[in-house]
């Protein structure tokens, strides 16, 4: 035995290259900075020189001025942020909480799939905003109807993604676990769930973008607060600076949500990060 062990310790090739341990400072994308400055200069000049279409548009300086003097310390403005974020959060979370188990059930239980999948296929192509009238009639408060529409936006994406992921789990992964004596509960928890995590992550990325789209539109149609409402009110009252403040705020809010979702995805899939 001993001699055999020795013989097996042949030098092994293909050792991974050791990475340079030096710490890298984050590098600034200078081209990006120049492009952003260029964008604002072009915007400013287009307004000042009165290019066609720009006559009604506010210049960047005016937008900034309005923001600093009237919005930065205005609690109503920040309440709009909170209102929109809350709706996105609730709609998104409920979509995950219901969509992930439903996708798993559809992928693993054939009878359930045959029973439920056709209904999902009928409902899925209906755009979330087409749900607005029914939603207002059905739900007791505006708040709950907006959350419902937001939920619809992310729900089907999650269901379909998880369902497809379950169907495409490598059979070898399941077989190997069966060979090694794993119970069906162990296979579900330790093999199937991790197999679909990458698809859950894709569903989250797509879902968060859709929920922001939907929440803004829903607020414009039926909300009495939120960033979508703020933007719409700016338009109705012919205050272009407010419209632009609203748009930039929505962009920032979406960007912040994406950062959070990206962070969560990395936490969910440590094996994808470590390469």
């Amino acid at each position, binding site marked *: 035995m001993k001699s*055999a062990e020795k*013989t097996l310790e*042949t030098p092994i090739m293909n050792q991974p290259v050791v990475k340079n341990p030096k710490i890298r400072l984050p590098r600034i994308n200078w081209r990006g900075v120049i492009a952003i400055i260029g964008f604002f200069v072009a915007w400013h000049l287009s307004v000042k020189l009165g290019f066609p279409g720009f006559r009604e548009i506010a210049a960047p300086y005016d937008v900034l001025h309005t923001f600093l003097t009237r919005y930065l310390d205005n609690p109503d403005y920040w309440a709009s942020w909170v209102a929109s974020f809350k709706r996105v959060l609730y709609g998104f979370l409920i979509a995950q909480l219901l969509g992930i188990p439903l996708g798993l059930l559809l992928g693993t239980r054939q009878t359930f799939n045959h029973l439920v999948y056709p209904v999902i296929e009928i409902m899925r192509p209906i755009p979330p905003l087409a749900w607005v009238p029914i939603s207002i009639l059905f739900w007791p408060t505006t708040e709950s109807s907006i959350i419902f529409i937001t939920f619809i936006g992310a729900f089907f994406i999650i269901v379909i993604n998880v369902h497809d992921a379950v169907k495409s789990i490598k059979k070898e992964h399941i077989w190997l676990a069966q*060979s*090694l004596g794993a119970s069906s509960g162990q296979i579900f928890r*330790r093999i199937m769930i*991790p197999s679909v995590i990458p698809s859950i992550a894709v569903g989250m990325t797509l879902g968060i973008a859709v929920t922001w789209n939907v929440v803004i539109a829903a607020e414009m149609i039926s909300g009495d607060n939120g960033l979508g409402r703020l933007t719409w009110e700016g338009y109705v009252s012919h205050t272009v600076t407010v419209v632009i403040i609203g748009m930039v705020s929505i962009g920032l809010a979406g960007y912040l949500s994406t950062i959070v979702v990206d962070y969560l995805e990395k936490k969910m899939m440590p*094996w994808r990060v*470590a390469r």
Partner: protein
Amino acid sequence: MKTHALSGELNVKGLSKWYHIKGQPPVHVLDDCSFEIEPGKLTVVMGTSGCGKSTLAYILCGYLNPDRGQVVMDGQQVKEPSSSRIMVFQETALWPWMTVLDNVIFGPLAAASIGKEEATRKAMELLRKFGLSEFKDKYPSQLSGGMKRRAELAQALINSPKVMVLDEPFRGLDVMTRELMQEYYIKLFEETRLTTVFITSELEEAIFLADRILIMGGTPSKMVHSLEVDLPRPRTFDVLASERYLEIKKEALEALYGDSMQHFV
């Protein structure tokens, strides 16, 4: 590691298999395959690609059921997967979300045969033997092809299987790593005499490793030829230059291609 002398005998009788794909006529893959896998021997199953070698392996491991015939292991009919027959798959089946160590200790922990501490100790022993102890906390995607193959061997061997089924395990590795792995497996086999079914489509690999080569052919596939490889053990790559090797190669080539060549005449 235990030795497995005289256990892991497989009797395969009249195996036939059809694949039923929706909207298409059934595909007849295996037809009346009968053969024996002797315990403590390394049996290579050869055939051209697509001839049903993998299907045969899946049936041997109990992942698929045959439409006709049966597989009997040590007197008991094979009906479902079991840790007494473990397969190394063509493409890596290491679970990408588990570290190397977690992949290896999965078997003993799932079977609850030993505690985590004991499993970890055994796993580390195997990983050390396979030159992977430094990589225990890495994920499979961080390993090279050869290292993945060795990790899979450790993952299988920790469960003390009676039969190893390797389905073209070294396909897709570069030539050097491949030869290294062949040498590696042959040493492992000669040390443990673990009953092995090794599937390949490469003749050189087959002769180098085998005690016996079973050749599949025809559509649907049957076992068309059985070839004893009486090259001396322990084996090194020197045997590839011996006269006996060339004789065996000639016989194997005739069995492999004699049939298909007739179609061209």
